């Protein structure tokens, strides 16, 4: 009593037949109007949208709408698409040190070059910032997950992003396999990225004198990375995940808008030079996350360690709790994140004129300095229930406060004493989210 050949296909065909049956409206609900093409599309896809607002203390502000959509095929397959648009504006530190004297620069950021080399002056004691910073970004990403067997799946994805001065494309693949009654998932991933850097006003020659305005053509960089991850269900309420990854970028890794103050022997400003970073960077990182969940409380603790070939070592610890109201209609989610990193080998807040000839790599970008940062966040979520006739729709508001404190312990020349050389950063992030 055997079924006909190709019996293994039977279940899949049966699933298709069941879906066809159940998608037919029962007699009584024929009173319901057809939702129409758009309605059916909206019902078949899950959407998430968010509008984020980012504000750095006295500097950049950004508005970022994000829309993502995903669709499950029901057989474990899934397609997701996302679109992001950024609009940044404000002022950005140019890398030079504060000074007791006024300092005059020419605008070096994206749009400002388009018209002319606009001049701006920084008042004594202030951190030099380019006040004309403005950039826009549009990014699109897509991921397609395909079930290979009942226990394994393959994901192919890609993304592209366009800025005024930066174009980036990435492709990624991943493979995941479940073991141990689906309590263990092992995944491998790899990605490759290619970028073109097209600074407005062309690319400054590394280490060239700022005043000389020496320029080169467009630059590029490429990267490749690999990731290995294990997710383990420890108990019914406890999930743990470990990822290790490595990636390597080569090519133009400088920030084309960053300069370094050159100090004469006594500490007086002698001029400015464009920064230069090594043309390759290899990063290795390990990430451990533990999630525990209960009826009305869940918690998530994650730790990350990263080390790179530039000499940066960073550690991140984050704890996040989610507290539900008794009806599970509302939740709040406090988050605290602590981050510390050591400086890149070539980080230097300024360049001594005497060393200018022998220095190959230098950057005063505070993102490469030794610093620690604390983030405090609070998210509120409201479950919209069945108001939209779908099973999971919610509205969320997230507020985060970020504070970065630089830890540079370099003897300060007399001429610079009394200045706040390393002011750090304070930023506020607000996000409104709506998923349906």
């Amino acid at each position: 009593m055997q079924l006909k050949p190709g019996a293994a296909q039977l279940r899949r065909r049966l699933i298709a037949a069941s879906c066809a049956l159940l998608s037919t409206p029962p007699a009584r609900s024929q009173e319901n109007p057809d939702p129409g093409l758009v309605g059916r599309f909206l019902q078949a896809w899950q959407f998430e949208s968010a509008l984020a607002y980012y504000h750095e203390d006295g500097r950049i502000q950004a508005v970022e709408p994000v829309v993502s959509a995903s669709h499950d095929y029901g057989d474990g397959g899934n397609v997701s698409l996302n679109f992001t648009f950024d609009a940044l504006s404000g002022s950005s530190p140019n890398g030079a040190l504060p000074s007791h004297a006024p300092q005059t620069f020419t605008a070096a950021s994206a749009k400002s070059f388009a018209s002319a080399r606009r001049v701006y002056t920084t008042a004594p004691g202030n951190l030099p910032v380019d006040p004309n910073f403005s950039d826009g970004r549009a990014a699109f990403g897509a991921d397609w997950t395909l079930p290979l067997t009942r226990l394994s799946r393959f994901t192919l994805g890609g993304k592209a992003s366009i800025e005024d001065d930066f174009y980036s494309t990435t492709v990624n693949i991943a493979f995941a396999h479940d073991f141990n009654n689906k309590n263990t998932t092992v995944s491998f991933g790899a990605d490759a990225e290619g970028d073109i850097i097209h600074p407005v006003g062309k690319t400054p020659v590394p280490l060239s004198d700022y005043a000389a305005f020496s320029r080169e053509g467009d630059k590029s960089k490429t990267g490749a990375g690999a990731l290995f991850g294990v997710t383990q269900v420890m108990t019914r309420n406890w999930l743990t995940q470990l990822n290790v990854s490595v990636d390597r970028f080569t090519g133009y890794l400088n920030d084309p808008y960053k300069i370094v103050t050159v100090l004469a022997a006594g500490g007086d400003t002698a001029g400015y030079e464009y920064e230069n970073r090594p043309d390759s960077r290899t990063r290795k990182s390990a990430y451990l996350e533990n999630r525990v969940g209960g009826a009305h409380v869940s918690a998530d603790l994650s730790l990350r360690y990263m080390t790179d070939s530039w000499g940066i070592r960073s550690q991140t610890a984050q704890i996040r709790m989610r507290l539900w109201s008794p009806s599970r209609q509302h939740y709040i989610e406090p988050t605290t994140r602590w981050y510390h990193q050591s400086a890149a080998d070539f980080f230097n807040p300024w360049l001594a004129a005497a060393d200018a000839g022998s220095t190959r790599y230098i950057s005063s970008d505070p993102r490469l300095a030794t610093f620690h940062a604390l983030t405090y966040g609070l998210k509120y979520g409201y479950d919209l229930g069945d108001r939209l006739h779908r099973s999971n729709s919610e509205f969320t508001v997230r507020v985060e406060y970020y504070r970065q404190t630089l830890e540079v312990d370099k003897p300060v020349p007399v001429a610079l004493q009394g200045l706040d050389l390393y002011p750090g950063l304070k930023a506020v992030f607000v996000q409104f989210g709506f998923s349906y």
Partner: protein
Amino acid sequence: MACPCEVLVYGDDRAQALSLGTMAAQEAWRVEHKYSRYRDDSVVAWIHGHRGLKCALDVETASLIDFAHRCFELSDGLFDITSGILRRVWKFDGSDRVPEADAVAALLPSIGFDKLQWEPPLLLLPAGMELDFGGIGKEYAVDRAYELLAAQCNVPFLLNFGGDLRTNRPPPQGPWRIGIERPDAEMTAAMLLDLERGALATSGDSRRFLLKASVRYSHILDPRTGWPVVDAPRSVTVAGSSCTEAGLLATLAMLQGAGARAFLEEQGARHWILQ
């Protein structure tokens, strides 16, 4: 439905639980009313009353016939909604009244979906034949009720119509725990399964069988021979995304007799078998 039906709703909203329970019950009654072979005002009775004539079926009934047709083809005739007339000779009451071979053979000419004229939405049921939705009706009712409830609420709920069940999500404390009855000892759970979401359907001969000369005749009849399947497991439980799908797989597995386990493994379906 001739079986206990229950709706479990997680939460502390009594009014909501009551309204969901009522909604599920009404949908179960609607499906039963429409497709029961025991009622003279059902669609099935109407079709039986128009044998030899082409009848235009409503959309829902047409899709059920389409589904039955598909299952008949996929299973090479093992699943057949026209096999219900075998009940005239097979009465699974726990007795030893096994029918005569001739009596069974006499019914075979009136069995076979391929003897129907089915040109959707027109159906012609030849004289002497019967339709029986009993093999899919209960699972279909679960899925229909499920969709109504899922559109109304997002609290975790579990529908259980006599052992065929479906849930939208687990309660916060963890998955639903499902007890599978041991076929020979009523009301004692032989196995406990965890169900997060999706459906479970069970096919078994716990209450319906014949016993003669120490041969147990299960109520699972092969429509092609008219005889019970040999060495069928006592009970087969299958998980699926819908109850209809899981129920069909469980039934087809039973029809494989001793090959039930191999069949389900080949299909890659999550399953639990009691021998």
